[in-house]
């Protein structure tokens, strides 16, 4: 029983826990949607002066900033007190596919070192490009779609919203394009 806490939690624990978080936020009069924080941060930094999109009462969204701060703390606690081995158990077929394109750190680290370890990196420029362009697309796309996986895939689909289903289909199209057409091309 002790070990269960320290190993990666199975999907049937993680999934329902996520929906319980959504439930708790809704009962608290809020909603479960992380990407709106990106807009709040822009607004808090004064972006309302250059764009109407950011001209709103961002202070009313402070609760959500607290939420992502909690996520940050959760990540800290999980990695520092509840993880004995931070390797990730990828499917062996995926391991083979990744090795074929030059990513081999599957069982050694939580995130692929080839991209995330900036201090010792053979492909530093490529890694920084991937991280920055990828991040930019996440920020742009989530606001365009009005939500990310928390807002659309979890909360929106739980409410049976058709718009969220379309967004989720978009998520998958984008993910598949990168995985099958762009990754093999750049590695």
């Amino acid at each position: 029983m002790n070990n269960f806490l320290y190993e990666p939690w199975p999907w049937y624990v993680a999934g329902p826990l996520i929906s319980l978080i959504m439930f708790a936020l809704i009962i608290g009069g809020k909603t479960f949607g992380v990407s709106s924080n990106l807009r709040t941060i822009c607004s808090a930094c004064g972006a309302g002066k250059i764009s109407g999109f950011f001209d709103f009462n961002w202070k009313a969204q402070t609760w959500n900033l607290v939420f992502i701060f909690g996520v940050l703390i959760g990540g800290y606690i999980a990695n520092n007190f509840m993880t004995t081995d931070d390797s990730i158990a990828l499917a062996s077929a995926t391991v083979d596919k990744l090795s074929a394109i030059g990513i081999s750190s599957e069982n050694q680290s939580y995130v692929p070192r080839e991209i995330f370890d900036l201090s010792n990196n053979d492909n530093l420029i490529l890694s920084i490009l991937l991280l920055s362009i990828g991040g930019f697309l996440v920020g742009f796309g989530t606001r365009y779609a009005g939500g990310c996986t928390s807002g659309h895939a979890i909360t929106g689909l739980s409410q049976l919203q058709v718009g969220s289903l379309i967004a989720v289909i978009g998520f998958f199209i984008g993910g598949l394009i990168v995985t099958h057409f762009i990754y093999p091309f750049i590695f």
Partner: protein
Amino acid sequence: MFQFDSFHMYGVIGSAVIFGILLTQIIKRMQIKSIDNKDLVFEDKDFLPKKYLLGGTIFGLGWALTGACPGPMFALLGAGYYAILIPIIFAILGTLAYGLLKDKLPH
């Protein structure tokens, strides 16, 4: 997840959605109120397929490139994978770019 070799992410999202549908139905049917005793109303989103499909696809591209969506970005930061600061900063910039360009984009 996008290699279709592993069930895990589908299990996480799938079970979260199934459970979430159940919990949402419980709230609706039992007319559960918020903790400050207000009615909980779920408004239907407007039907804007271009916005959701285009925005969603763009996000999906970034999601697969970085391996993280916004929530996990902050979890990774707390866990000490500081390279994630680059996606976080650029995500904020991407959001800024959207705000500046949105009136020119199809919705």
